[in-house]
């Protein structure tokens, strides 16, 4: 009989993500036994919310007890906890959107896929070895391919296919890079890559290039960003909201772990420099692209390209403060971005999603509360006070100055200057005196979506005054 190589602590490490995955199964099962009617929607939503809340709770227990499970394959506590919590919160908010605008057909199936995708992202957040990174990435992506195509609208199939083909190619790049890493070190552990000895290895350098291309694709950094607007526009709204944060958060966790823990030789900054260069370019290109958009989902897709550029820029120089500020900005971005998507959801009618910019005309007069919330989120995305986005940008700027990357700070400011028109164009539509209000259908009250909106408003505002990112997230591998 072969002894079980893993202890109880190893299995404890994956309890949070197992809860999410099991909740997805329960959702599917419950769908079979609930009678037709309103319960068909609320029972699965309630199960998902409970599952995610349970995962958030058990995950929070691990904060402060950092250890490496499965021989370094999966990290618990600190950094992993923070990213997992961000992923869970984003998933919860997406479920709130889903509960409001999700199609009746395949309702539970979509929810289950969303949860599985979440568990994949949680796995990536804690991944300490190449194997777990890839496992998490595929779990996240496979569920998302299906989710993108779930809507009966014609564009959804196109979005799904585009995403499938391009994302698979990127996964291929990443996998090839990982194979080369394995060739260079003979190990799948990220920790094995650290140090000077590996840095001069040609296999390692080629592998890094391929691995980072994969990362840049998943993060939607320029020039690997062209899929984002099409996929975001075609996918159903809750899926777009989910992807806009969760894919980025999970990939950022992998990138941060790689940059901080695996590339540690004397030339580390030179090796990582290309990523920071394309992050800087993304800030400009993303915002320029957003200028011309007339669809809210496409606009937020482009703006997301720029926003992820800001977050990656915070990591330049691999400083402890930079990591803290990247996490803070990511957390703030979660609330302000999904907050904007929640407004879109609350504006949706049974015929169309509220994503056409025309739907925002005169909103300041017809739906003052919704318009005011939107203004707050747009201010936050533009980096204006009194929002967490303002403080987050200041922190990233100072991290850049601190680490000697003043040029990134300059690009960040230039990108922000362009983004002004993007975000204030919507403010102009909502409050301009010449704007004729767009007739909107009054939909049933959506308590969950409103609760999510209130949470987003609160966090976006209150974090202006208490922008303390988590400390004690280093070291990233053991």
């Amino acid at each position, binding site marked *: 009989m072969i002894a079980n190589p893993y202890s109880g602590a190893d299995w404890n490490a994956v309890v949070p993500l197992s809860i999410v995955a099991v909740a997805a199964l329960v959702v599917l099962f419950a769908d079979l036994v609930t009678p037709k009617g309103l319960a068909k929607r609320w029972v699965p939503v309630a199960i998902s919310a409970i599952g995610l809340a349970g995962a958030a709770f058990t995950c929070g227990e691990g904060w402060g007890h950092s250890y490496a499970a499965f021989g370094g394959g999966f990290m618990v506590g600190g950094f992993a906890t923070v990213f997992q919590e961000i992923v869970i919160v984003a998933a919860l908010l997406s479920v709130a959107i889903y509960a409001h605008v999700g199609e009746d057909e395949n309702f539970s199936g979509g929810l289950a896929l969303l949860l599985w995708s979440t568990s994949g992202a949680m796995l990536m957040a804690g991944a300490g070895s190449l194997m777990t990174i890839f496992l998490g990435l595929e779990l996240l992506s496979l569920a998302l391919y299906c989710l993108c195509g779930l809507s009966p609208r014609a564009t959804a199939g196109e979005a799904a296919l585009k995403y499938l083909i391009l994302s698979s190619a990127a996964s291929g790049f990443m996998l090839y890079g990982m194979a080369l890493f394995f060739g260079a070190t003979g190990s799948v552990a990220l920790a094995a890559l650290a140090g000077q000895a590996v840095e001069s290895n040609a296999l390692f350098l080629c592998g890094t290039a391929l691995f980072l291309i994969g990362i840049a694709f998943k993060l939607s950094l320029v020039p690997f960003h062209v899929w984002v607007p099409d996929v975001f526009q075609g996918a159903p709204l809750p899926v777009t909201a989910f992807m806009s944060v969760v894919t980025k958060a999970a990939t950022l966790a992998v990138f941060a772990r790689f940059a901080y823990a695996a590339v540690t030789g004397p030339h580390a900054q030179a090796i990582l420099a290309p990523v920071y260069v394309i992050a800087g370019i993304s800030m400009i290109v993303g915002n320029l692209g957003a200028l011309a958009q007339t669809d809210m989902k496409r606009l937020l897709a482009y703006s997301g390209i720029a926003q992820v550029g800001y977050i990656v820029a915070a990591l330049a120089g691999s400083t402890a403060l930079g990591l803290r500020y990247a996490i803070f900005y990511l957390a703030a971005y979660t609330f302000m971005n999904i907050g904007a998507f929640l407004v879109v959801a609350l504006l949706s009618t049974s015929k169309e999603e509220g994503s056409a910019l025309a739907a925002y005309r005169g909103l300041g007069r017809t739906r003052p509360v919704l318009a005011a919330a939107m203004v707050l989120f747009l201010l936050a995305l533009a980096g204006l006070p*009194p929002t967490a986005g303002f403080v987050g940008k*200041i922190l990233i700027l*100072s991290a850049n100055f601190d680490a000697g990357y003043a040029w990134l700070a300059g690009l960040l400011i230039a990108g922000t200057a362009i983004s*002004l*028109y993007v975000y*204030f164009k919507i403010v102009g539509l909502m409050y301009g005196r010449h704007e004729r209000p767009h007739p909107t259908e009054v939909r049933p009250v959506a308590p969950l979506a409103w609760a999510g909106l209130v949470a987003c408003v609160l966090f976006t505002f209150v974090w202006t005054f208490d922008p*303390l990112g988590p400390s004690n997230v280093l070291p990233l591998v053991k």
Partner: protein
Amino acid sequence: MMVLLALVVLPIAAGFALYALPRADRTLAKGIATGVAAVTFLAGIALRDQSMSVRWLARPFTAAFHFADDGIGFWIALLLALCTLCAVLAANVPRLRDFLALMLLLEGAMMGVFLARDLLVFALFWDLMLVPVFLGLLGWGEHPSTAWRYLIYNFAGGLTLLLSTAAFGVAFGSTDVIGRSGLAHLGYIWGPWIFAGFAFAFLVKTPIWPLHTWMPPTYSDTPPPMVAVVSAVQSKAGLYGFIVVGMALLPEAMHAATYVMLWLGLISLLYGGFVALVQTDAKRIVAYSSLSHLGLILVAIFSFNALALRGALIYVIAHGLFNAVLFLVLGFIEEREETRSLPRLGGLARANPKIAGAFAIGALAALGLPGLIGFAGELIMLTGIFSAGYFWPALIALVPIVLAAAYMLRLFQDIMQGPEIPDVPIRRDLTLIEGLAVAPLVLAMVFFGVNPHALTTFDTTLYVSASELAP
């Protein structure tokens, strides 16, 4: 401490609370807004060397929500509270509730700028004060393009301010520095760049030629009560910044920029003066006269002279008072005559003696008549500039004072005197409320005009001595 907090938080909270009132009830909205503005003004009077500080950031530099009323901020805050009170009283625009809410939000944001003792808090409120004006221009302005022009210029300034603030924080380790001076030498090669970022923001906000092109359309499009506050107080944020940030914190870089700034100031004061001579839109005349007057204050600041600085601070208040009066009265006239084009106005003084009287006092203060507040400020500034050894700048600065007499008298004549235009719809003199809105400003102009030393409680030595330490 409570008073300081009330000055910043009360208008903002009340501004949001106004949205809860019924939309159509104009009297209620105006009553509440006036009450809040009055309480804020009384709180401003009660300010005496107060200070409060709440920790904000610990890393990468320390920052705190630190507010205090020492130095210059006190008088500008008081000016702001007074102007807002008068403007709220005078406001008579469509959708009054929403407009008054914006006015109160604007007041709170600007209070934050002038009372902040922390650069980061200063930057926060600096950016915040853009939003109400932008929304005001969008909702009540004549052309949406003006709102965009205002926003793009001022946001660009806000961004360079932000960049410089972050760089300053990283270099110095703290942004809790406003009101301090004689800081240890920064020893930072980016000192001039940091100053350049601040200076760009300040020049845009003031504005100074050639960054002024947002200002004339903004001043002529914004509804009068809001433009009274914007031109009277928001335009001072840049000059205030030059004194408390430039002079006190970055003296070397400030000195290095002297000649550029003197030139920009002189060009502004000449350009503004000459353009004001030929405008036919009454609000634009006052707008360009502003450019001229603010250019003069910039020259005074950059002469690094204690006397000139004292004069500049008096003139900051003076300009705020007479600009507020001029814009409010022009608003009353526009409401009655439905035009502000000089060729279509005339002879109002006969039917509206009170309007004419208030307008005359404002115009006379603006052209520097002795006995009114403008004269004291101009005389002290010019003496200071001259005694600092800047002979030619002082001489050039005399030109727009002559021009001011020409364009202000022309403005007054064309509107108030001459033949009456026959088809004017309403001949109604100042109502009681309108009178109440203008009276405090006029009284203040007269009071400080004969008694200017009441304003010189500023501790100018703090700033001038800091700049004299520089090589």
